[in-house]
């Protein structure tokens, strides 16, 4: 236990250092991109030089980049994620509005995809080499190769345009402003298509990793030994193989949860979902430096923590893993 605490503390220090390095690299890479927020803001219709100069001064964009960098790091160390040039609001205010809509679709779909992928892999492997496997594997290859935005559009065309089962886009029916339980039902109704699309896209990942992992375990020495001493196939599979095979998909699941904060840009665009992915993409196009950096900071933090949690969880599940 003492080792564990030492390990966690060490990891937290390394995460802090890593995030600092990542943010430094991001800062300079973002500023190296051609164009800047002010010229994008003023656009092509009214790009008055006077406006550009005034805005550059207002946001401190006329200062040398190194000065801007130290200013940014100073703010960040005080927990200030910066100020959006485009929206004239603190970045955190813009980001926090997107967190719930983002996580509800990404985490729900990751959990579903993890469960379904795992179940399918176990089901198919347990069944042996029958038709089932070929069909499921074929489907998983097809889904794996399907572009998400295309699948999203097809889902809209089939389930909302043709079958009229689900709403086409957005989070709520804006024509009728529901409240209370009706609002929650309406929200879930809007949630179905984006979540199903994201789930379908992710299932093959978990399915294939779990299946490969099961096949590998079936060839391990311990399997042969256990079979030789007369452990039944059923017991061997349920008690030993699954337990071992679950580690790789669980690791991937942890990483995916880490990325869940970044949202799913293409899905958010197609379903007009106000998530983090779209906020990030807009920030890229508008060169909203600090907003973009704020999102990257959150992303780096989320991923690091998710990985740490995953490692600890795996150490609990698999006594062979020692955290040192």
């Amino acid at each position, binding site marked *: 236990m003492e080792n564990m605490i030492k390990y966690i503390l060490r990891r937290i220090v390394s995460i802090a250092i890593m995030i600092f390095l990542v943010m430094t690299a991001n800062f300079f890479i973002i500023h190296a*991109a*051609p*164009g*800047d927020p002010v*010229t*994008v*803001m*003023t*656009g*092509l*219709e*009214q*790009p*008055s*030089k*006077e*406006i550009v*100069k*005034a*805005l550059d001064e*207002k946001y401190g964009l006329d200062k040398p980049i190194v000065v801007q960098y130290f200013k940014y790091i100073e703010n960040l160390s005080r927990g200030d994620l910066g100020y959006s040039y*485009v*929206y*004239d*609001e603190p970045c955190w205010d*813009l980001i926090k*509005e*997107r967190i719930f809509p983002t996580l509800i679709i990404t985490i729900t779909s990751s959990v579903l995809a993890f469960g379904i992928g795992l179940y399918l892999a176990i089901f198919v492997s347990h069944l042996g080499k029958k038709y089932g496997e070929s069909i499921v594997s074929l489907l998983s290859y097809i889904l794996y190769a399907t572009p998400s935005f295309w699948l999203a*559009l097809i889902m*809209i*065309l089939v389930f*909302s*345009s043709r079958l*009229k089962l689900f*709403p*086409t*886009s*957005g*989070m709520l029916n*804006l*024509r*009728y*402003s529901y409240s209370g339980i009706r609002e929650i039902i309406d929200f879930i109704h809007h949630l179905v298509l984006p979540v199903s699309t994201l789930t379908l896209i992710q299932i093959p990942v978990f399915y294939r990793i779990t299946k490969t992992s099961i096949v590998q375990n079936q060839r391990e020495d311990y399997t042969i030994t256990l079979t030789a001493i007369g452990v039944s196939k059923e017991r061997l599979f349920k008690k030993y193989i699954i337990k071992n095979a679950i580690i790789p998909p669980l690791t991937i699941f942890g990483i995916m949860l880490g990325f869940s904060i970044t949202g799913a840009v293409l899905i958010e*665009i*197609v*379903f*007009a979902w*106000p*998530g983090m992915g*779209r*906020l990030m993409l*807009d920030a890229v*196009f*508008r*060169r909203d430096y600090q907003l973009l950096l704020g999102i990257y900071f959150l992303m780096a933090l989320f991923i690091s923590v998710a990985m740490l949690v995953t490692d600890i969880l795996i150490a609990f599940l698999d006594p062979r893993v020692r955290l040192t």
Partner: protein
Amino acid sequence: MKKVFLTFFLISVVIFVGIAGMTPKKGGTMVIAYWGDPISFNPDAKIDDAGSGIYGCIFSRLVALDADYNVIPDLAKSWEVSKDGLTYTFHLRKGVKWQDGQPFTAADVVWTFEQIMSHKEAPAHAHFARVKSIEAPNDYTVVIKMKKPYSPFLGFLAWYGTYIMPKHLYDITKGGSPVDWLNNPHNQKPIGTGPFEFVKWVKGAYVMLKKNPDYFLGEPYLDRIVFKEIPDQNTALQTFLNGGADYDENTNVAQLGILKKTPHVVVYTKPSPSRYYLAFNVGRRKSPFHNKKVRFAVAYALNRKDIFDKAIKYGKVAEGFYTPAVSWAYNPNAKIPVHNIQLAKKLLDEAGYPVKSNGIRFKATLVYFQGQVWSDMATIIKEQLAQIGIKVKLEEYEIATYIQKVLKAGDFDLTLLDGFQGPDPDNLTLRVGTGKDINVMGYSNPEVDKLLSEGSQVFDIKERAKYYFKVQTILSQDLPIYPIAEVINRYVYKDYVEDLPYKLVGVVAYNNYAKTWLNK
């Protein structure tokens, strides 16, 4: 006799039903599938194209533009301009209230315009450059004095970033120092004098408004308007067709064919004062197009009807050097050269660009920004110029890089542009005036500059037109740009939506839905 009577009866019925059918119905929510998210609800502080489609519902101006770009009364019910063009007197409506119940007065107007004048980054700032003073002799009169006559002033006052804002909410201090209008909390929760009141804004999702029963042009018919942000045009189309929106403001031309055939969908198009054109590098970095003969050669080689038919499809092929949508200023006699390959080749020979052994005369870059229309236009231009031995290299960039490369650095030979050229021909100054903001070409002709400057000081429209006619003639001789096509505005909505602002020319501003109603 019986027949006559029957006919008379039938006509009466038709007329009666017709009139009854057109009596506006109250109530309902209109959902607009909208293309973008506003950056804030301060309508004057920054350039915000997505916001400007919505601001007209919440705020009012002194004077407004209708859908045909005429200046119409808004908060000012009438106005006078002195003979020398130096004094504008606006008479304000009485009894107008802010949506929080406070009375609207001339003090709000004076405060708003002072803010615009003291904020260099305000989009309307430049149009106030010749203003000497703004005064309110009483609560319902505003007098603006100019240093020099500026005839486009009224048009620009009606256009962008000139909404009157509530002084009582914005003229505040925090800790003893005044709060800048960009940091005012009401930027997130606006109060205006317009037909609709702000209800809710979920960023990236929607803006919801409800009617203002005390609106000065009469209580609006709609209960609510929702601007639903749908960035993807395919999704916007499906949402619209599936009943999730009544009005689709995020269409593309490729969809118009299908939409026109869809029952209960209205597709209406009308000319917009915006146009597509090819701009030559006339005076930026080194380029063969500094030579006028080379520019004319390109103009003779290009077939803009072909470009229009294949890439643009909707609108009109350009014929002259200004938008015909501002008809009084359009010179029909300043023509673009007619397609003539032989002449093009001859001009290039004369200009010192003979065909080399590889069949090429010279290489040139065509820089444009992302988008189907642009890449289609660029591809066709490349093919057409290959016929006279100009090898065009296409460079496509997203907008930030494009602006950096073309506007700031001038690093291109040819580029494609469009953009609003109204509400007044003075807008030409921005595009062809020496050193001006959208003059990416680096074009400079002192005579053009002089004519544009003089034109902006004349008030009689017939007299003014002469200056702009002359400018267009010179442009047709200098050819810093090659106009390709006139852009159209499109309106796509369900047939039960009645009286959209574009139909109410002279009555409401182009973005004011006070008189719109749902016939269902």
